Every structure is written in structure tokens, then in C-alpha cells.
């Protein structure tokens, strides 16, 4: 085993340790935010694969998340709960009595979202830039409208309430292992993918399509592959989000949700796994911390009435500032690597050694 693999294993074990401590010390509100962080890490990485590494500007993420969330919800809920939810129009018989365990349902959520990724990707990936953005945005809205109108499958605008907790044992304390477990798996998967030969081909396509094609890279295959992998993880992220919230309805999967993820990816650095992870955690925590802005504010004796959604203005402004002054985001296209850390360590320890000698 090489030194780097060892370091990776040690840090994963350290992560698990930290999660264990946090899980037993934090209150339920903080834990919920921590879970949300994990989910946004998954979502940001899946969007970054499509937008950052292959350079396809896709805005259809909310659509894939909706597919994932509804799939997992309908597959895990017990028949009685479904009957209670679908009081306006009964659920279709083939779905009424299905109840799978959580991991299988989660996987199915990813698979169905990936399937949708193939269906939408095959025609749409021939487009480029703004046209691709418009087409994928349209797809996401179409999914939302379909889910609003298929009353007997998705319960329409009423949404679905009472989704089971994340996990197999139906306990709240289990959630963190699923959200961060999947997040860590996603990080490792993406890192391996990006550093392999597929990843290089992805980046080549992002940098220069014609040159990439002239090198013999199959453009369409690689674009579709990235798009499908991205939608798979978006589906899983959406499913986890649904189970964490406990309630889903079509309005939840509006463009604003995609915008949040785009924001995370842009702030973190388009084309950086490390950046996406850091910025997913920061943005998720900030979104909660800035809730103060939504409430009433008192300056001296003057009270400003709170307007819900004020905190989103902060994020929009932040995004504009980043786009204008700091386009590379937190990390640019750089990554955290062990080489980098080891080099740093050497640099710090070298002068110290010299001092000792003199």
C-alpha cells in the first residue's frame, strides 16, 4: 500500500470518528444541517461533473432530484401511509403495496434518474452552451409539471407527507451515516473517475471539443456518460433530501433548487471536487445562519418587517460578486492532494532543520 492510500484510509477513518462524535453531541437542529451538508455535497459533485468537468451547462438538476425523491418515497412508504396520502384519488394499484428497504429504494432512485438522464441526454447533448442550458431547464420544469398532474402516481400538487426516516432502523440518529456515507462514496468515486482516463477525456472535451475529437475521443459517449452519472447521483441526493425533509411536493423542485446547487459549484470552483465539497458545507451552513435576515430586524427603535427570502438576496449578490471579481471560486480547478500537503510539510520543516544545523 502506498503512502497516499494509507493517508486516505486514515483520513476516512478520522472522518467517521468525527461524524460519530458529532452525531452523539449535536442537537437535532444542528444534525439536520449536518445531514443537509452531506446531501448538498452529493448534489454539488454530481452537477460539477456535468458542468465543471465536461463543460456542459446543464440546469436540469432539480428534475433529476424530483425523480429520485418521488421514486424513493413511493418505494419505501408502507401501504397504509400511501392510502392516507392519496385521499383525493387513490394510488395506482401496482404501486400501492410495494414496500422496499431503504438502500434498494435509494439505489432505484438513482437508477430511475439516470434512466431519465439517458432519455433527455441523448437528444439534448447535441446542443451547446446556452441552448443546452435552456433545454435542460425546460426538462426540469416538464418533470415538475408532469408530477403535478399525475395525481394517481405522485399525488399531484398535494405532495407526499410522512416519508420514512433515512435508514433501515427507522431512527433519526442513523441518517448521518447514510448522508455522509453516500457523500464520501461520491467523493471517492468522483476523484477516481476524474483522475482516470475517462476524467482526462472529460476535461479534454471541456477544453476543446474539436481537438478532443481529433485525438479520437468519442464526444457523444463521454458527454452522455457524464450526464448519466451526474443524474444518477442527483437522483440519490434528491431521495435523501426527500427523506430528510419528510415531505415532498412538486413545488420543492423549482428552478431555485437547481440555482442553489449551481451557486455552490460556482463558489467552490467549476471543475474542482475539493471546492464543491468545501462550498457545499459553507453555503448550507450559511443558508441556515442567515435565517436571521428573514425575520423582523430591530435597528434602534425602528423595526423592519421581515420578508421571507431576504437571505437568498445575499446569495444572489454573492454569486454576482464571485462572477465579476473572482471567477475561479474558492479552489479554481485545483484539487486537494496528498502531494500538495507533503510538499507543504517539507517546506515548513526544511528551514527548521537548517536552523538546527546552524
Amino acid at each position, binding site marked *: 500500500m502506498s503512502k497516499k492510500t494509507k493517508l486516505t484510509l486514515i483520513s476516512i477513518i478520522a472522518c467517521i470518528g468525527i461524524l460519530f462524535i458529532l452525531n452523539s453531541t449535536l442537537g437535532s437542529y444542528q444534525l439536520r444541517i449536518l445531514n443537509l451538508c452531506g446531501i448538498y455535497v452529493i448534489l454539488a459533485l454530481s452537477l460539477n461533473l456535468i458542468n465543471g468537468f465536461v463543460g456542459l451547462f446543464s440546469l436540469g438538476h432539480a428534475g433529476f432530484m424530483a425523480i429520485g425523491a418521488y421514486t424513493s418515497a413511493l418505494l419505501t412508504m408502507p401501504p397504509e401511509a400511501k392510502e392516507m396520502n392519496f385521499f383525493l384519488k387513490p394510488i395506482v394499484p401496482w404501486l400501492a403495496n410495494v414496500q422496499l428497504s431503504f438502500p434498494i429504494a435509494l439505489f432505484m432512485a438513482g437508477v430511475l434518474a439516470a434512466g431519465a438522464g439517458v432519455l433527455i441526454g441523448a437528444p439534448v447533448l447535441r446542443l451547446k452552451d446556452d441552448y443546452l442550458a435552456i433545454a435542460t431547464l425546460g426538462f426540469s420544469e416538464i418533470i415538475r409539471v408532469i408530477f403535478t398532474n399525475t395525481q394517481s402516481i405522485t399525488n399531484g400538487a398535494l405532495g407526499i407527507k410522512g416519508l420514512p426516516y433515512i435508514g433501515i432502523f427507522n431512527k433519526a440518529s442513523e441518517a448521518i451515516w447514510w448522508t455522509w456515507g453516500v457523500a464520501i462514496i461520491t467523493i471517492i468515486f468522483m476523484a477516481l473517475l476524474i483522475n482516470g482516463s475517462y476524467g482526462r477525456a472529460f*476535461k479534454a472535451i471541456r*477544453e*476543446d471539443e474539436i*481537438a*478532443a475529437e*481529433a*485525438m*479520437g475521443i468519442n464526444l457523444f459517449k463521454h458527454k452522455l456518460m457524464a450526464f448519466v452519472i451526474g443524474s444518477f447521483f442527483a437522483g440519490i441526493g434528491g431521495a435523501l433530501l426527500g427523506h430528510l425533509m419528510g415531505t415532498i411536493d412538486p413545488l420543492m423542485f423549482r428552478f431555485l433548487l437547481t440555482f442553489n446547487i449551481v451557486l455552490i459549484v460556482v463558489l467552490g470552483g467549476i*471543475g474542482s471536487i475539493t471546492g464543491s465539497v468545501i462550498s457545499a458545507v459553507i453555503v448550507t451552513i450559511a443558508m441556515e445562519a442567515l435565517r436571521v435576515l428573514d425575520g423582523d430586524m430591530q435597528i434602534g427603535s425602528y423595526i423592519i418587517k421581515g420578508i421571507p427570502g431576504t437571505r437568498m438576496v445575499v446569495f444572489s449578490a454573492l454569486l454576482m460578486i464571485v462572477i465579476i471579481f473572482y471567477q475561479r471560486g474558492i479552489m479554481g*480547478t485545483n484539487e486537494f492532494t496528498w502531494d500538495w500537503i507533503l510538499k507543504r510539510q517539507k517546506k515548513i520543516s526544511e528551514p527548521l532543520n537548517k536552523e538546527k544545523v546552524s
Partner: protein
Amino acid sequence: MLKIRDLNVHYGGIHALRGISIDVPENKIVTLIGANGAGKSTTLRSIMGLVKSSSGEVVYNGENILNKRTRDIVSKGIVMVPEGRRVFPNLNVEENLILGAYIRKDKEAIKKDMNFVYELFPRLKERKWQKAGTMSGGEQQMLAVGRALMTKPKLLLMDEPSLGLAPLIVKDIFQIIKEIHKDGVTILLVEQNAKAALEIADYGYVLETGTIVLEGKGKDLLNNDDVQRAYLGEAK
């Protein structure tokens, strides 16, 4: 090695290539010269399958490769150094070279060829970890050539390798083309720098608005009055 017969290419309503025929014999340098918009780059692109040709034949080692998929053409041993270099700017030199060997699976041989490229271009070795986009035009051109060599080509198509480079570096580039040729690579060279191209070429074609107006041995074309008047600006 490569025989082009009566090749026609249309861009929408524009008839870009009007039935040209070119021969590239094995182990020779053949050059295609002509002014802007004559159809030089289009010829290379249609050989590579990057543009759809409307009619004609491109026969490579006895097989018609017209309108085949680019990746299949690359795997047959034809590689293009694209116009304007087109290196991958945010990837480092090493990654660019590895991408050149994308269709190859033989890891050992790839490593060997990488060393060969670094020997050919010591500058690239010095800048192994530098992002390609931050290098000078000449270095980028070297990288583009090196990247193409990583595919282990039998036939190398070069699209204006001297474009936008300082005269001294142009000289270097042509020197390198000769070296690559000595290694047994057949070269089809497209150039606006007619003098330099004809000097190293065994055979040349002059292209004008999609038709071949003149062809002959490199040296003969160099001394041809029409060519001199039109491209070399040395009318007697």
C-alpha cells in the same frame, strides 16, 4: 499511402472543395499551399472525418475512409495537428501528451513514446507540470506536435504549424517536421508559408478556391513563376 480522388465538400450552399485529387505516397512530405479560404484546412478536416464530404474518395492503404468516424480514422494511424494549435489550455503538458495517446492501450509503449517526445522537445520536459495555456505560442505548437506523435501516427496531417509564430521558431518547427519525417512518418503539410513548406516538401499542390491549379515537385514549384508571383512575392 493516401489517395484523394475527386473530393467535394459543401458548407451549406458554399462549394468549398471542387473535386480535388491528391496523392500522398509513403515516406514523403507532401504540401498543400494556397491563400486564405482556398480549402486547405477543409481538405484535412474531411480526411479526418471532421466535416462531411459530399462526394469523392479518400483511399488510405486501399480502404475508402471517406466520412468514417474520426476515432476510427485516428486508430488507423492518421492524426492531425489542428490549426491554431488547440492544446488543452487548463491541462498540464503531461496530461496533454497522455490525451494524445487516448486510443492506445499499450502502457509501456506509451511511456516510451512520451520519453521520445520529451527528447525531441526538451522544452516540454522542463515544463511538464505547467498548464499548456500559459506557455508561449511556439511551445504550444511543440506540444500540439508532440501530442499528435503520441498517437503513433503513420500519416501526420499538419494544419499551418507556422501560424502566428516568430520567424526563428518557424525555422525550428520546420526542422522538427524534417526530423519526424526521418523517423518514417508520412506528412501532409498545409501551409501559407509557401517558401518554407516547399523547401522541405517532396511534392506540392497549389490550391485556389477549392480547385488544384498547380502541382509538381517541391523544388520545381518553388521556382515556378506563377507560384513566385502569387505566394512568394518575388516576381521577376
